[in-house]
């Protein structure tokens, strides 16, 4: 069966702009096909378009996506491939009767996925029909030598379509760690003795700290030098960086960069990022 697939703007298609929904990458023509694109092209699936919920997907950290935003994404398609690192897509899918299938981390190649938060980045499937979504997931899953941080041990799970372990939980399971994430404002410092499990507020805060820290690092490559947006008038290198980034990044991206820089700064590193990491590892 052939199905219509729409790609999030973060998934790269050779010779086509991969904007990630950002003015920064409006002129960025992808030099390669993402592995998931190559795998779709090897089947009779049809790639019918591109869509972005927000710039680099980061707005999902600060607000909920609306039903009509999801409806629009799947207007002319059966499934959408997207990276729901904030959990906002899964949450919205649940509220409007769609499904978001979140594969296990490291089971779908990220070669050709524009990174946002590397420790959470994972291409998943948004769909109206779970069986169709699962078929598409089977096509895109599996080991890829072009992604050095895949998890070959998990691969079998993704290939066996009828396995009860098959990870199809995010749109359905309220216990999923990525289903409920709404974060607003600046995080407060963490104490070491906190229990992460069962504490939703703490989970949100840790997620915000880790997301913004990693996101900031991933945005630093956009400097206007070799590709992407460059401001027109500038007097030196620093002003070129500053103007290009000021003009091309939107509000949510800037907010996440600021929070990320704050939690990684030498004054705050121990109070925020280091503790957030340890709380995840210890729990």
């Amino acid at each position, binding site marked *: 069966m052939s199905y219509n697939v729409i790609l999030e703007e973060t998934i790269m298609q050779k010779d086509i702009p991969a904007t990630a929904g950002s003015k920064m990458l409006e002129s960025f023509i992808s030099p*390669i096909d993402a592995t998931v694109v190559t795998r779709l092209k090897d089947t009779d699936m049809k790639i019918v378009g591109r869509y972005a919920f927000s710039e680099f997907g980061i707005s999902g950290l600060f607000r909920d996506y609306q039903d009509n935003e999801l409806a629009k994404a799947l207007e002319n398609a059966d499934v959408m491939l997207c990276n729901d690192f904030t959990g906002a897509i899964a949450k919205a899918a649940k509220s409007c009767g769609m499904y978001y299938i979140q594969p296990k981390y490291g089971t779908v190649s990220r070669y050709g*996925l*524009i*990174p946002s938060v590397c420790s959470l980045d994972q291409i998943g499937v948004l769909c109206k029909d779970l069986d169709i979504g699962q078929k598409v997931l089977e096509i895109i899953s599996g080991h890829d030598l*072009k992604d050095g941080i895949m998890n070959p041990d998990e691969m079998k799970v993704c290939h066996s379509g009828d396995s009860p372990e098959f990870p199809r939980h995010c749109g359905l399971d309220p216990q999923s760690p990525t289903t409920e994430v709404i974060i607003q404002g600046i995080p407060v410092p963490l104490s070491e003795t906190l229990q992460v499990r069962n504490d939703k507020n703490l989970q949100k805060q840790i997620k915000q700290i880790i997301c913004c820290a990693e996101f900031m690092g*991933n945005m630093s490559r956009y*400097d206007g030098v070799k590709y992407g947006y460059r401001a027109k008038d500038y007097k030196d290198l620093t002003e070129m*960086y500053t103007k290009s980034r000021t003009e091309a990044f939107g509000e949510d991206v800037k907010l996440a960069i600021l929070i990320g820089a704050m939690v990684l700064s030498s004054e705050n590193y121990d109070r925020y990022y280091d503790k957030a990491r340890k709380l995840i590892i210890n729990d």
Partner: protein
Amino acid sequence: MSNYEVVMGLEVHVELATKSKLFCSCSAAFGADPNENICPACMGMPGMPAILNKHAVELGITAGLVTNSEISPVITFDKKNYFYPDLPTGYQITQFFFTNM
């Protein structure tokens, strides 16, 4: 001064004789024209996961062995962020959280 104990660390660099770069397959040879040995990955373009050069790990372990050093059974990598013109991605891939297991 006698209240202080002097502790010194040495940062030792070894140039590994690999044919290609550490995290992409571009040539590591010297002498080419500027911007010859580059690819989307080492230009810092998005969507290009770093792929570790296996031979570099082997040579690195060899360098450790010939200097009678302790070899860790596990290696991990981290990002070190700094914004500077010599760094297309804005971060180095280095070993920050690494502890000898």
